[in-house]
């Protein structure tokens, strides 16, 4: 395919992905808005003042970056895993497979679809958070880079999950039993300084910790870990997941006989 055709194919996948999640917005955009509003109201407004400061900030201010990041992570992941698995389930993934669209564009297109949903939900949650707290961005470039890379990483994760999934249960197992615990234990609600040194060391193996803290650094200017190291970790995971996802597509795992 010529470069101009590749761009058309890429934009077609992205447009289709956006159309898909916008068509079912009550399932894709509304739930995180409601859930996060409840988090802000209950943890931030009601319980937060009793907890006191965390990392030198009010509890509400401290959890806002983590909650935004949590929405981005779950939505970018869910978008790609649900969309690609549905395409497998309905066999309409064959529309892409019979076409000359290169595999890396298929992967890239799905990932950007997930990124757009993740970021859109991130923006919605950020706007909602403004009803509960004032947000001062300490470092806008870091904030944008971290949220963008995180959405890419979890979109790739959703894609790999969907390739292996054989039933709808399979695309909910990872978010329920892996993603949610990693996110809750990834410093969304607390600083790892509160943990004993053993659990602090264990926490460092949780990749979500790096994303939440790097994002918190962008907004609040504080982080439990080095931001440069966090960006390196996220980037390394992205490269690894992209190559692995591409390998699965090239082999036709779960989509070609």
């Amino acid at each position, binding site marked *: *395919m*010529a470069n*101009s*055709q*590749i761009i*058309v*194919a890429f*934009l*077609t*996948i992205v*447009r*289709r992905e956006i*159309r898909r999640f916008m*068509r079912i917005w009550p399932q894709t955009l509304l739930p995180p808005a409601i859930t996060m509003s409840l988090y802000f109201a209950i943890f931030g407004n009601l319980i937060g003042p009793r907890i006191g400061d965390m990392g030198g900030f009010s509890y509400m201010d401290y959890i806002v970056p983590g909650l935004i990041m949590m929405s981005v992570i779950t939505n970018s992941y869910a978008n790609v895993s649900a969309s690609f698995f*549905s*395409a497998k389930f*309905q*066999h*309409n993934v*064959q*529309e*892409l*497979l*019979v*076409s*000359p*669209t*290169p595999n890396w564009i298929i992967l890239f297109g799905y990932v950007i679809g997930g990124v757009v949903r993740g970021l859109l939900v991130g923006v919605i949650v950020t706007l909602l958070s403004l009803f509960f707290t004032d947000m001062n961005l300490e470092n806008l470039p870091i904030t944008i880079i971290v949220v963008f890379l995180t959405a890419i990483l979890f979109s790739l994760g959703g894609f790999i999950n969907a390739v292996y999934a054989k039933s709808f249960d399979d695309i909910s197992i990872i978010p329920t039993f892996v993603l949610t615990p990693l996110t809750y234990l990834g410093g969304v609600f607390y600083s790892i300084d509160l943990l004993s040194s053993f659990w602090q060391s264990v926490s460092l193996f949780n990749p979500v910790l790096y994303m939440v803290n790097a994002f918190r650094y962008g907004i609040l200017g504080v982080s439990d870990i080095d931001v440069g190291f966090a960006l390196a970790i996220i980037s390394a995971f992205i490269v690894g997941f992209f190559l692995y996802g591409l390998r699965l597509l090239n082999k*036709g795992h779960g989509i*070609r*006989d």
Partner: protein
Amino acid sequence: MTYAIEISGLKKRYNNGFEALKEINLQVKKGDFFALLGPNGAGKSTTIGILCSLVNKTSGQVTIAGIDIDKDFAAAKQHLGVVPQEFNFNVFETPFNIVITQAGFYGIPREVAIPRAEKYLKQLGLWEKRDGPAMALSGGMKRRLMIARALIHEPEILILDEPTAGVDIELRRSMWEFIKELNDQGTTIILTTHYLEEAEQLCRNIAIINKGEIVENTSVKALLKTLNQETFILDVEGAAAGINVSIPDYQITTLNDGHSLEVEINRGQSMNALFTALSDQGLQVLSMRNKANRLEELFVKLTKG
């Protein structure tokens, strides 16, 4: 000669050890109307799957429009359109979006795709339904939608895998008129079907595949010539149930309905002699038809066992 499709030594062994294709060789000429026939599980869908990249081949060589799929599958795919057996579009999308999206996957910009989509959706009687959900279409309309989708990049080779399965007679005929027109305009058509009379009426060349091997590959005309014996049902006046009609050299059975005879005619035997002999016995032939489609008889012979 450049072939539309050229397959040599194509082999497919699935992970469970099943050998679906045993080094088959096949050529389809450019502009041909070609039938690929075979019983269920013979290897038709595997062959088509390999051509359109839904199945990975084990070994062998495949060229599409002269392009080796191992060297440049993407370029080869530009020449191929596929109408699969099963519905494989997103039923929540509209027919218009389904067709336009497919064009995008082939790198066709929207400003080119939109008038093309209008053309094919109109030709296939789907234009009025373009903005409704595809799930609301009837079975026949869904099949026509898949044809429109397969044509959106205007391929020179169109593969139709059982396109008329479950389609009513009127719709089937109009579908074939459309496909015949495409073929007249130069599109190579490759068809699999269980309706053998369709293959006999429409196709110029034919391959019959059985248990992963090509057991016949010739023109429909040449294949029908190999038929040594045909069975006819004669509707006669003057016969009664159980009457014993006997004419030397002809094998005749009286059917239970009391007015039909089943006659086996060998190649070279005269029909005139049969009619004269029946007339001599006081029987008048009112009508005559083949007991089975001629191609069907050959098909059964070639694939049985």
